[in-house]
């Protein structure tokens, strides 16, 4: 809980730092603050406290996810350091990002629907601005607008769902809702199902599952690369964790009513996103569709709930996030700002900067799920979970789609190692980014070789 205060304080500090000309000192302070919040979060481990009359609960699930978010955020800051350096609104962006993190922490630790809503909004509103932070660039504007539009649209659905559930259960508290749903005298009415479905729709928008995904590629492409990286990692983690928390703790009693729907959506997500990704030319769009696809894989944990599904999901999310961050970091270095990198711009990267090419290859392999990298185990756990729940067909489909996935990930790899480009000058990579890439590399490999550490946490 203290971490929330630290993060909020950090955000406020960043906000007013500009006024006092603290820009230079800001970056180290933010990094220290993030580390501090991660440490504070870890101290909450196994305490399971609830705060503010049960608005937030820092159980192990919440602690694990919010620590994960802080760590990913640290990596993200390392990645985007140079982006911040060349920006006139540096402190604003810092503040927005940190507030978004606060929102993300809310989203993983809420035990009241109000906090879910607030978390989502704190996160989203900050991101709407970040997405459009290239003010003169129409593409960025457009991305920002579409993100805003779809975000608020989704919020509408979410809220309508919340309202209906409140109508049935007279409470916003997760445990009370669950009790009301369970209690024999409450006839589970059509309103409840409608509410559950509407909330599902709202959250599916947020995690960009098919058929609510259409905004994601546009937004990802138009936004500045670092912001896209933020969206596809931290936002994804938070949104999915929130989704998972809601449906496992709250709506599990009525799971027969929503599981089938979710299965359909999972299937659609897996197929559509992977197939569409094959036809993309821009690396950012490929990564966007890949993130949609990964949402599909994560959804598998939700439709097949067993005792290890939350652990599997956590592992998946982390493996995915680390690999994505490093992929985006490479993209950021290769394409730079203002360049909407198509696959061809990776041509001959292996010659121009072997290190970048290598890390990109490893990240993509991890995303594709090739052993022994973390991405493979992530998929593996999910398949195991699905197997346990008896969704063999789903597993088969997931395997087929991940094969399709290999195809488009490998297009980039092929471009890097195979094709030659007229540009031959080598690419200089900032030191922080190098460190980041090395860390991501190590984490991806180590997580892959010793997955047990994380899986048993939850």
């Amino acid at each position: 809980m203290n971490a929330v205060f630290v993060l909020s304080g950090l955000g406020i500090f960043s906000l007013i730092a500009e006024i006092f000309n603290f820009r230079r000192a800001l970056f180290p302070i933010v990094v220290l603050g993030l580390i501090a919040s991660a440490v504070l979060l870890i101290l909450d481990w196994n305490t399971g406290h609830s705060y503010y009359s049960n608005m937030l609960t820092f159980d192990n699930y919440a602690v694990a996810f919010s620590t994960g978010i802080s760590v990913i955020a640290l990596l993200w800051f390392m990645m985007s350091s140079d982006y911040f350096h060349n920006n006139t609104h540096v402190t604003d962006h810092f503040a927005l990002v940190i507030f978004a993190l606060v929102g993300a922490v809310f989203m993983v630790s809420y035990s009241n629907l109000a906090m879910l809503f607030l978390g989502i909004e704190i996160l989203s509103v900050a991101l709407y601005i970040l997405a459009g932070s290239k003010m003169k660039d129409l593409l960025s504007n457009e991305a920002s607008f579409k993100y805003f539009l779809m975000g608020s649209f989704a919020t509408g659905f979410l809220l309508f769902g919340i309202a209906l559930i409140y109508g049935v259960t007279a409470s916003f508290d997760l445990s009370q809702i669950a009790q009301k749903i369970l209690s024999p005298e409450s006839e589970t009415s059509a309103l409840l199902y409608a509410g559950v479905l509407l909330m599902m729709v709202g959250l599916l928008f947020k995690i960009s599952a098919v058929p609510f995904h259409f905004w994601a590629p546009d937004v990802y492409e138009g936004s500045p690369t670092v912001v896209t990286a933020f969206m596809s990692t931290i936002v994804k983690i938070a949104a999915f964790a929130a989704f998972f928390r809601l449906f496992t703790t709250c709506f599990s009693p009525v799971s027969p009513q929503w599981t089938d729907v979710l299965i359909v959506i999972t299937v659609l997500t897996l197929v559509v996103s992977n197939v569409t990704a094959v036809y993309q030319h821009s690396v950012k769009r490929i990564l966007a569709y890949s993130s949609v696809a990964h949402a599909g894989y994560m959804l598998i944990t939700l439709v097949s709930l067993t005792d290890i599904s939350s652990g599997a999901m956590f592992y998946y999310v982390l493996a995915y996030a680390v690999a994505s961050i490093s992929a985006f970091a490479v993209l950021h270095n290769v394409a730079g700002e203002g360049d909407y990198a198509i696959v061809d711009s990776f041509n001959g990267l292996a010659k121009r900067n072997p290190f970048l090419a290598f890390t990109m290859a490893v990240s993509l392999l991890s995303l594709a799920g090739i052993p022994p990298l973390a991405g493979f185990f992530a998929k593996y756990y999910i398949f195991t979970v699905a197997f346990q729940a008896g969704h063999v067909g789903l597993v088969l489909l997931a395997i087929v789609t991940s094969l399709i996935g290999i195809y488009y990930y490998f297009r980039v790899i092929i471009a890097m190692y195979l094709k030659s480009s007229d540009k031959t000058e080598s690419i200089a990579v900032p030191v922080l980014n190098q460190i980041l890439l090395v860390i991501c590399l190590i984490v991806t490999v180590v997580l892959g070789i010793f997955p047990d550490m994380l899986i048993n946490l939850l």
Partner: protein
Amino acid sequence: MPLNYYIWLSTALFVIGVLGVLYRRNIIIIFMCIELMLNAVNLLLVAFSAHHGDGAGQVFVFFIMAVAAAEVAVGLAILIVIYNNTRSTDIKVLNKLKW
């Protein structure tokens, strides 16, 4: 008044908002439709809150209003930036990225 009336009314408002978002081409009208959706929710929450005799629903409405204000502020800011770049508020100008 029976609760059902409120439910139907707010559902109707909500659906109008949704359709407006989907079909209208002017960005400002789309914004208004989103507000309509949120207000439909507010109405519903207040109705349920009165029905249950529980204040939580009304507090939630406060939250929604506050957040909606923030959202609108950001949304309009985005709109202004777009307008400055394109001199138009028609959603058709936003076609650089394909859907």
